[in-house]
């Protein structure tokens, strides 16, 4: 299976990464060589194999329902690129 430029642009869109038009060719080449390498897996028949969901053989641990966090707005907002004392601020969402 080979990846064409259109497919790569679509995937980049999904990943929210704008791809520099000048770099698309080399990116296509790199990704195709990587996928060729990855596709060695097709040699293996895995029809009867269960996929691995977790490497640890234990159940999910849970915590008690207690309020132990929050009320740290200043810390939460401190690194925010657009300063505001109450909210995160982003460019208008166009629906």
């Amino acid at each position, binding site marked *: 299976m080979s990846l064409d430029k259109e497919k790569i642009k679509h995937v980049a869109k*999904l990943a929210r990464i704008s791809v520099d038009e000048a770099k698309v060719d080399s990116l296509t080449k790199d990704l195709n060589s990587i996928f060729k390498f990855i596709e060695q897996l097709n040699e293996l028949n895995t029809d009867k194999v269960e996929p691995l969901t977790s490497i640890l053989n234990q159940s999910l641990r849970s915590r008690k329902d207690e309020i132990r966090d929050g009320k740290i707005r200043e810390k939460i907002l401190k690194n925010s690129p657009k300063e505001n004392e109450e909210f995160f601020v982003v460019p208008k969402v166009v629906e």
Partner: protein
Amino acid sequence: MVDITNQSLNDIIENIKTKKISSTDLTKAYINNIQSAKKLNAFVTTTFDHALDKAKQFDNKPNFDQLLPGIPLAVKDLFCTENIKTTAGSNILNNFIPSYESTVTKNLWNNGSFLLGKLNCDEFAMGSSNETSYYGNVINPVGDQLVPGGSSGGSSSALAADLTPATIGTDTGGSIRQPASFTGTVGLKPTYGLCSRWGIVAFASSLDQAGPMTKTIKDCAIMLESMSGFDEKDSTSINKKKEQYSKNLKDNIKGLKIGIPKEYRVDNMPKEIDELWEKGKKILKDLGAQLIDISLPHTKYALPTYYIVAPAEASSNLARYDGVRYGYRSKQGKDLIEMYEKTRSEGFGDEVKRRILIGTYVLSSGYYDAYYLKAQKVRQLIKKDFDDSFTKIDAILTPSTPSSAFKIGEKTNDPVSMYLNDIFTVPVNLAGIPALSLPAGVDKQGYPLGLQLIGKALDEQKILNIGYAIEKNCRFKNKIKRWWL
């Protein structure tokens, strides 16, 4: 004054305990080394004032019962450190100052050590040569123009160059063991779940593990003991009693069964690697261990599996770097979507973007079964290979890497050849089991080579013991001249 900085961590601790040196003098000695080693580019951030402050506090009120009394430590810049910039080697976190401390570093500080600085690494730990860092290449002290390995390249370089008495890295596919091998140092990737992942910038959650990088096996045991432990904040942390790895370290390995997997003899492997492996086998045999030929039939599929699983998880883990709450935000971008696309395009480097695209693709509709699901099935087979083997043997011996350190720029144009560097280290991450790399020889250029010991889950003590025995008998000595001075 004798230079104490080229001693092992264990010896330094002895010197502190016997008051032969103060924490302040020790710290000053390292600061001095760091300041004159800028050429290596091992540090992204230094915290000298903080370190001197802590050293002074220790000297005023020393507690010698701690595991790391008054010891300054530099750590990989992937560990979030409270109020100290944490970049993960990326432009997208260039201005990020966490308000929290990772569990692993907090454990180190609770054992008496303190932060000396943050070490360069491949961007988001994606790389095998430290060439993907936004903060520039790191130089291997073994030789000018040599890469220190990756992604914990700043850690391996700083350690080998005596810029820190020990350090910690993270290992997703070999990022501790490969740089350790390239710099003649010891590196251990613990069992998945032994060290908390809380507060470590995530690359691939099901594979990431923090671990020690040290000059000796004994040091490795001390560091592992200090950093590991159950953490209720990490759902994948294993709840078990803490082990005293350093106290229980012993070099008697008589009767242990060591597996030698035939699949680790790969085509075009340099003769020196083969010789190193033979040397390791001989030492073990001479010490009374039993060598057993084993087969791990799915080894060759580990790397392709890894290059599906790791990018898939990374593509999701790195979605949070969107310019909204912290980190870099592009000045361009009229609306939200454009802001995202520009921020992520400008904030991430090429290798990271490449892996995000691979990961997004293998999870996307119509391709999930063919790639991601397939990889998780093969991962099951790889794990089973190890599980089956460990019913017959105590540990596995392999080379750590298929080559010694290569030159900067040598592999940057061919991602697959770069990826192949991790061919011996990756299977262990996929299986979640521990592995240790220790220096055991040099190639004809005099560059260090490492041997890898793989254990079953939670068998860190056993592989440390075997490593301890090899270390004593192979008489490896790192001959690094401080050419950068």
